[in-house]
């Protein structure tokens, strides 16, 4: 009977729903059982009267005195010297099975404290692996909030955390993986005024930041406080990795006494980065941090690893040693903590301590510039004009204002005849309006155009970013 069949179908979907619910509950029970077992074994390992479970999440700048949690816990009662607590044996058994690592390696790891600076593309795998592998205390510094355009590479953050502080998101993820370690959130941008105080609390520092001035600052700070620095960097399809200021390896200043010209500093927010690339480098940073913490193996001291994702090549090169004449780590260095706190790293490198804020240029007189709102009026009034978009072709393909002519800035000079033809088609009296992503290249283009006789050329202040913000909120910014 049709009705019966329909009823049976309804019963079937109800059945499925119940089965789903059961499956979910069973999984939760399994999870709870696991946590109960973990706590029970922890309880067994702790003698009565001693509060053992000092581990957990510390917010703010609470001290991270080595690993309080692990140091206060005693062994399992079945091994000489007490051995590791029973819960650690089970959790880290695959580490303990490694002859080169073993109990000693795991113990050292559990007594180490590591600071990860930056919870971004590099910091994500660093923090996840260091939490999972059982470092005693893991500190995370970052002043930023999670953004949707971070998620393709910053794998520690989930959609639900967009808009929340990265340190909170990262610390929550680490605690979910390993509730037995101490995770400390430092919700600040690391700066000369707070760096000494924060870094001082840790044994090892991992530089997982995204900008040049911060890299100089972290290196100087590590030299002053004599901490090994595991430094990684990634951009586009390439990555680099080395360990500074450890076992006679150089510091960042030994290698790069003077900062590069601003034009040579590419940022991920301008040049792009393939998500896996910082992932690979971050994993290797976690590995180097573990090696430094445990003394197992040969850390990348005095060597640099270069990763080329496109050709799938890894090259390891030999670096100079720490230079005796280095202004910061050399024997006769007189760079003090007071000097450090006063040092202006942004001025020194001429670039901001952030990946996001592109330094903006100001090349043109007011008369050669218009706001995007004024440009909108010009369009609405049907004033004759030609919109020239000088972004690279692959940017133009993402999104553009129609109609516009795309001639990338790098090709503008050779394509002037094309421009001239297009301009004639729109009418002799038409204005030439130049546009780019943020309003810097458009100024460079207008400057060139003025020199070449295109006197009417004007640039749109703030570029497409301003357009998306002030005129058309539907325009997809990137």
């Amino acid at each position, binding site marked *: 009977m049709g009705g019966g069949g329909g009823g049976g179908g309804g019963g079937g979907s109800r059945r499925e729903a119940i089965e789903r619910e059961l499956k979910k509950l069973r999984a939760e029970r399994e999870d709870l059982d696991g946590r109960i077992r973990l706590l029970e074994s922890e309880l067994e390992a702790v003698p009565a009267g001693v509060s053992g479970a000092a581990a957990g999440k510390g917010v703010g700048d609470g001290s991270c005195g080595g690993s309080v949690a692990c140091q206060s816990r005693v062994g399992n009662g079945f091994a000489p010297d007490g051995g590791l607590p029973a819960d650690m044996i089970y959790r880290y058994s695959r580490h303990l099975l490694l002859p080169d690592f073993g109990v000693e390696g795991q113990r050292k790891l559990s007594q180490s404290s590591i600071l990860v600076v*930056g919870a971004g593309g590099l910091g994500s795998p660093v923090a996840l692996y260091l939490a999972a592998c059982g470092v005693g205390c893991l500190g995370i510094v970052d002043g930023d909030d999670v953004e949707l355009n971070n998620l393709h590479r910053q794998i520690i953050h989930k959609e639900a955390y967009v808009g929340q502080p990265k340190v909170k998101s990262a610390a929550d993820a680490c605690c979910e993986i390993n509730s037995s370690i101490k995770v400390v959130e430092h919700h600040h941008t690391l700066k000369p005024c707070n760096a000494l105080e924060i870094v001082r609390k840790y044994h090892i520092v991992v530089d997982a*930041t995204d900008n040049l001035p911060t890299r100089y600052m972290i290196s100087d700070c590590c030299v002053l406080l004599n901490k090994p620095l595991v430094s990684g960097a990634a951009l586009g399809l390439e*990555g680099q990795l080395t360990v500074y200021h450890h076992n006679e390896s150089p510091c960042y200043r030994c290698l790069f006494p003077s900062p*590069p010209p601003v034009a040579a500093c590419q940022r991920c927010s301008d040049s792009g980065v393939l998500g896996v690339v910082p992932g690979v480098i971050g994993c290797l940073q976690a590995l180097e941090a573990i090696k430094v913490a445990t003394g197992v193996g040969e850390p990348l001291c005095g060597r640099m690893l270069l990763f080329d994702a496109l050709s799938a090549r890894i090259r390891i090169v030999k670096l100079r040693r720490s230079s005796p004449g280095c202004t910061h780590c050399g024997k006769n260095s007189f760079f003090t903590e007071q000097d450090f706190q006063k040092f202006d790293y942004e001025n020194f490198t001429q670039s901001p301590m952030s990946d996001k804020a592109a330094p903006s240029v100001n090349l043109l007189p007011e008369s050669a510039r218009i706001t995007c709102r004024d440009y909108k009026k010009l369009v609405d009034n049907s004033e004759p004009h030609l919109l020239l978009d000088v972004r690279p072709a692959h940017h133009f393909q993402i999104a553009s204002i129609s109609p516009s002519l795309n001639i990338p800035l790098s090709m503008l000079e050779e394509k002037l005849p094309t421009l001239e033809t297009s301009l004639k088609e729109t009418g002799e009296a038409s204005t030439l309006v130049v546009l780019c992503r943020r309003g810097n290249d458009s100024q460079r283009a207008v400057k060139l155009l003025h020199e070449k006789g295109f006197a009417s050329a004007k640039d749109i202040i703030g570029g497409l970013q301003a357009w998306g913000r002030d005129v058309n909120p539907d325009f997809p910014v990137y």
Partner: protein
Amino acid sequence: MERPKLDQANRRGGLELLLENSTKVHKVEVTTPKDGQGKVVEVTTPKDGQGKVTMKLLLSWVKDNLIKERPEMFVKGDSVRPGVLVLINDCDWELCGGLDAELEEKDVVVFISTLHGG
């Protein structure tokens, strides 16, 4: 050796952008001015009449022959610009004599532009 060859000058980490076709690997033959047929050239060390190619000479040659735009992104003065790591056979050129390092046939010279992103 009158005409030493540099088998590869391999540039990466962004410097390829300064070159035509963005090529990363270049096989170059750097000739010394001795025979008067060299493409480049600048004699760097006095009495360098044996055709030795130094890093200083190579940099000058690369700047004149390979770099198509913005030379300031590659050189500063007679050395590389700050932020470029120079490697001779996978070894920091500071360990090989820097600008005075002498190159031999089949040597591989790599210019690494340091990355800061993450």
